[in-house]
């Protein structure tokens, strides 16, 4: 296959899937209406409102498209790219192809915050989930530094400890909860884009887009950082660089997780696919992960909301899609290193 063509396909896939998923939903919108309304909107935006088309569609059509579908599609794409990028960054930082952003305690912290908000505190779920995912990340880092130097091993160990700690706390909260509220927590933990609106888009977009830009600019240094302690002799301060990368992606994932719950496996698998297709060089890995992550997530979400009359939690779907793929990877590499 022509490598350039594939590359192009990967890069434009988010745009294709964006328009594709806009056309799919539970409310029966005729395709022509969608095209008209979108075209009119684009025209309006491009001409700064000087040209408007008078379309004779019920106003509910616009509500469905611009207030319901569009924010959801955008949120899914943002979250997908956030998770994929942070997976790629952390895999390089930890020199370990099997980590994703949850290894440093982000999901466990967010889950605890959400449980606290749903069950006990009159604060918003998003705020507490965000706060506690950052707290968990900070604790992981502090704990990793307890022996003086932050190494890959101490970080992963600290991550395991903090994950266990917050999981235990969450279990305790769940134990103390009424079953109705408990269902709320369980549902949150499975992840969903159902609540996406423009506020959510804004709150997710700012950290995610900023994070993507920063990571994209710094992407090549991930190659060097992935050399581990050895990167020092190439002239970079490994400790400081790790903190920078981890902080940036933590912020991104925390924002995503806080609004949409825990969506597993995306961060793990998207970078793998890109690596298999285009090699491990982060110069291309990062932009391709953004593209693939957003495409995958928006398609998975479309699947989640259109398989059945009810919605399947997106976290369940990504896991169910992710595991066969991962098994395939394991088989392909015969369980050996991902390097061979």
């Amino acid at each position, binding site marked *: 296959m022509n490598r350039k063509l594939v590359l192009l396909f990967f890069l434009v896939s988010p745009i294709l899937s964006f328009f594709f998923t806009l056309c799919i939903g539970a409310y029966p919108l005729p395709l022509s209406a969608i095209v008209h309304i979108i075209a009119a909107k684009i025209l309006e935006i491009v001409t700064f409102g000087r040209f408007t088309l008078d379309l004779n569609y019920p106003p509910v059509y616009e509500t469905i498209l611009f207030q319901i579908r569009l924010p959801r599609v955008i949120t899914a794409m943002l979250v997908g790219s956030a998770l994929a990028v942070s997976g790629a960054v952390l895999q390089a930082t930890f020199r370990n192809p099997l980590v994703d952003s949850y290894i440093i305690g982000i999901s466990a912290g967010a889950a605890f915050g959400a449980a606290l908000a749903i069950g006990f505190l009159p604060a918003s779920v998003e705020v507490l989930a965000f706060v506690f995912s950052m707290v968990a990340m900070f604790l992981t880092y502090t704990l990793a530094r307890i022996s003086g130097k932050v190494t890959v091993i101490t970080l992963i160990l600290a991550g395991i400890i903090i994950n266990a700690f917050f999981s235990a706390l969450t279990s305790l909260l769940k134990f103390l909860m009424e079953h109705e509220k408990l269902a709320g927590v369980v549902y949150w933990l499975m992840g969903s884009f159902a609540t996406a609106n423009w506020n959510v888009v804004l709150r997710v977009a700012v950290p995610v887009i900023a994070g993507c830009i920063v990571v994209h600019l710094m992407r*090549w240094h991930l190659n060097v950082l*992935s050399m581990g302690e050895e990167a020092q002799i190439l002239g970079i301060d490994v400790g400081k660089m790790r903190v920078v990368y981890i902080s940036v992606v933590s912020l991104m994932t925390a924002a995503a997780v806080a609004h949409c719950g825990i969506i597993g496996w995306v961060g793990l698998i998207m970078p793998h696919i890109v690596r298999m297709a285009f090699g491990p*060089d982060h110069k291309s890995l990062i932009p391709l992960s953004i593209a693939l992550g957003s495409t995958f997530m928006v398609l998975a979400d479309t699947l989640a909301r259109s398989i059945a009359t009810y919605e399947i939690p997106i976290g369940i779907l990504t896991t169910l899609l992710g595991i066969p793929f991962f098994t395939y990877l394991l088989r392909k590499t015969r369980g050996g290193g991902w390097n*061979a």
Partner: protein
Amino acid sequence: MLKVEGLSFSYGDFTVENVCFEVKDGEILTLLGPNGSGKTTILKNVYGLLRPKKKCVFVDGKDFPSLSLKERAKLAGYVPQSHHPPFPYTVLDVVVMGLTSQLSVFESPREEHYKRALEKLRLLGMERFKDRPYTQLSGGQLQLVLIARALIQEPRVLLDEPTAHLDFKNQVKILGIIKRLTREEKIAAVITLHDPNLASVYSDKIALVKEGEIKAVGVPREILREEILREVYSVPVQIFELNGFRVVMPVMEVTI
């Protein structure tokens, strides 16, 4: 020119005491000694990856370990003893990483940088491997890639631990290349070896290391003497002379 004056270091029970030597441009100094004698520790101290107790390492008169990592990377190339590849980068990608110190954190290497990497590979006869994943190389080839990465920014000093895991052919080949490059590029090289005969052939100077101390420094002819080698290696040896080189042979204690 690299000058080490009274380098001392301790970590737990392990100490390095009062190490002194000097390497001129175009010269190779070999740290020779048995395994665990402190050769790698001395090398790491020289680069500043470990912190010696006081100012003691000077490159062209500058206090080397106090420089930033970036400046140090520009002045000295370091070839690590062992390397664990995280991802299957291409050979070219690995060599170009040697230029990190010349790029800002938001920069990626450009065409010119790849050209320089390619030149270095050509110099080492590795050009045809440039797109090969470096995880698929042999030990000797990997060693050459890492040397290329160390030399790409034309350092004044080369610190190398080249031969630990290589077979004889590759040891000879790589030491030959290092010898050639240091001469041509006027680099001051410090390498570590534990085979006295290889040291005898390729070194301009030998520093005998035992238990963190330098027992003797000097040209191979002066250093390779029976008593002192016996003391350093704790085995009886005999010295022969061949074509102007000193040859070290073990004394057989069992008659056949």
